[in-house]
């Protein structure tokens, strides 16, 4: 980093004119632009089918989507050249809307493998068992996660709330730079929502950024965004401050869509 440049002035994520399509050629993202700096919390809201989840999947490197145009840079590196695991190792974390069940792989074993693979890629030594155990205990406590849950197969037979808490638990363990939360609030009761939000608020600091993807304004009462973007039909059509979320909650999306269409 050049001298004299404040860390929060540097761009973390830079998305330029991003177009992405699914296998049959249907274009889902039609030119998304977004810049996220360290320390910022962004929220993307929008109606169902607007492309919010696709956007998060494309950043994370899901091969179900093909990027046909545009750029994604992460700390000035070309993200589109990287495989999903490399993006994760660089510090991108996606909390899944529907976390996948993996029978036979315990939460602890999985997280140990993930942490050590990331360390290996950086030429670092594997994390010591005792250190890992301490981290697991601390983070599990923060999220009110029971011990036996860590020995269970990932997400197998977990309730909706347990799955989401497990995602946030993994986020705290992996300690990424950018956390993308894809509909993390869906299926959560108010207590679980508070626990998850506390976890995210604990995570975030001046070096980290959070991108919240949500349908409802509810989660944003707990994780307060610096910027709110409205996505519709594969584009960001309006951006504003946190007050935009409140307005969207009250008035719905139609007025923004109409405004963007110039009606």
């Amino acid at each position, binding site marked *: 980093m050049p001298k004299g440049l404040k860390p929060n002035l540097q761009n973390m994520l830079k998305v330029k004119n991003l177009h992405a399509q699914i296998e049959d050629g249907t274009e889902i993202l039609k030119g998304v632009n977004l810049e996220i700096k360290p320390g910022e919390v962004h929220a993307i809201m929008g109606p169902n089918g607007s492309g919010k989840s696709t956007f998060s999947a494309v950043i*994370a*490197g*899901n*091969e*179900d989507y093909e990027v046909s145009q545009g750029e994604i840079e992460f700390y000035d590196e070309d993200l589109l050249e990287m*495989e*999903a*695991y490399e993006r*994760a*190792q660089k510090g991108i*974390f*996606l909390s*899944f809307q529907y*976390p*996948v*069940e*993996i*029978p*036979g*792989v315990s939460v602890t*074993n*999985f*997280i140990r*493998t*993930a*942490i050590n*693979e*990331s360390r290996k*890629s950086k030429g670092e030594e594997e994390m010591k068992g005792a250190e890992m155990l301490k981290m697991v205990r601390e983070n599990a406590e923060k999220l009110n996660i029971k011990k036996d849950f860590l020995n269970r*197969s990932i997400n197998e037979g977990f309730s909706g709330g347990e799955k989401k808490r497990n995602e946030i638990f*993994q986020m705290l363990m*992996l300690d990424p730079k950018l956390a993308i939360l894809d509909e993390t609030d869906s299926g959560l009761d108010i207590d679980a929502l508070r626990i998850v939000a506390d976890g995210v608020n604990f995570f975030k600091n001046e070096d980290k950024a959070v991108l919240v993807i949500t349908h409802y304004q509810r989660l944003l009462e707990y994780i307060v965004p610096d910027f709110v973007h409205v996505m519709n039909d594969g584009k960001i059509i309006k951006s504003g401050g946190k007050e935009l979320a409140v307005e969207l909650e009250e008035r719905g999306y139609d007025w923004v869509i109409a405004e963007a269409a110039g009606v």
Partner: protein
Amino acid sequence: MLELKDNLVARHLVFKEKYSKIKWMNGMREQAIKTFDKVGFPNRKDEEWRFTNLSPVLSADYKLYPEGDEIPVRIEDLKNYFVSNIDSYNIVFINGVYNSFLSSTTHDEADICVLSCAMEKMVYQTVVENYYNKIAPKDESFTALNTAFSHDGAYIYIPDKTILSKPIQLMFFSTAKEEEVMYHPRNLIVLGDHSQVQIIERHQTLNQKANLTNSVTEIAVGKNAELDYYKIQNDASEASLIDNTYISQARDSRASVHTFSFGGKLTRNNLNFIQNGVNSNSILNGITIISGEQHVDHHTLVEHMAPHCESHELYKGIYDGNSHGVFNGKIFVHKDAQKLNSFQQNNNVLLSDKAEIDTKPQLEIFADDVKCSHGCTVGQLDENAMFYMQQRGIPKAEAKALLLYAFAAEVLELVQIPQIKNRIIAIIADKLNVNMEF
């Protein structure tokens, strides 16, 4: 195919002269070669061989004993194939000949030695005559061929109430330099009442020759006795194996066979359990991981003849490349086998478009108060799980290995010897091209 058959029948004339010392066996061999001459090798018109084409392995001009030089092998290299860090009795054959240097036998707590020796000695006469060729059927092609040509293998007799102090490793190496050999090892294993034994068996070709092993193992498990048997099949890609194992169980006995099939060109496991006594329990476990042009066929049979018995069968298979797997699980419930509890499951993952699995449960039930469940699945690698794992920073190969290991691991839960489990895990990691401990 005709050629090899006729060739073998003709060569039996020479063979029986050479091994005519044990008189009571001569008639048995004569009968067996006649049976083989009559039934011949099976082909794909036989229901039991529909999915396994034998012609590629029946076209070679096999020697029955290697005649020329042997390739030089270092003892250290041979030792790599043993399950290491484990104190064990060993019975080792190289090119069909017992190797006393590498073996470690006993006549103290039990008789663990060479069958050809046991046959010649009066003290073993009763056991040999009571069990040899009594558990195996007389009319099956490969078994008859083995009876006709076999002259050696392991002899294991565990006396009543003996819990063997350490496992037994049976190793069959092939090092003939010039020729392809057809081996006929024959093992006789008798467990006295209330006895316990653990056995590991492995066939290994070291000479890059397309050898064919046609092995027969007969096992009698006494009352309340416990057998724990591990077959580690990770042979060179040229070698083929027809394994015929017959286990007869007396009342209250428990017998488990774990078959790990990772190597070889063609492997056929004919694994047969006959439950003769009440309250017997049979466990059949298998993991198959193959690729390339490999072929592994598991044909299992559990004959439930007595009431209050159990069988538990779990086979998992992972197939890549052009490989071909077959699972045929036959459960035969005789009319007296009431109150049976039988479970069978075969799960498979196909990793390529060209890999194939033919899986078939076959239940024949003649009793009316039994519980028999069975199921089979064929699936692919879960792409959602793959993305999920990669999103957490786990590279593709490792993510794939972790998923596949998780798929197969359930089968390893019943492995009682940790060193075997570790060995199998190491082979699995090797097969999946990762350096992981899981």
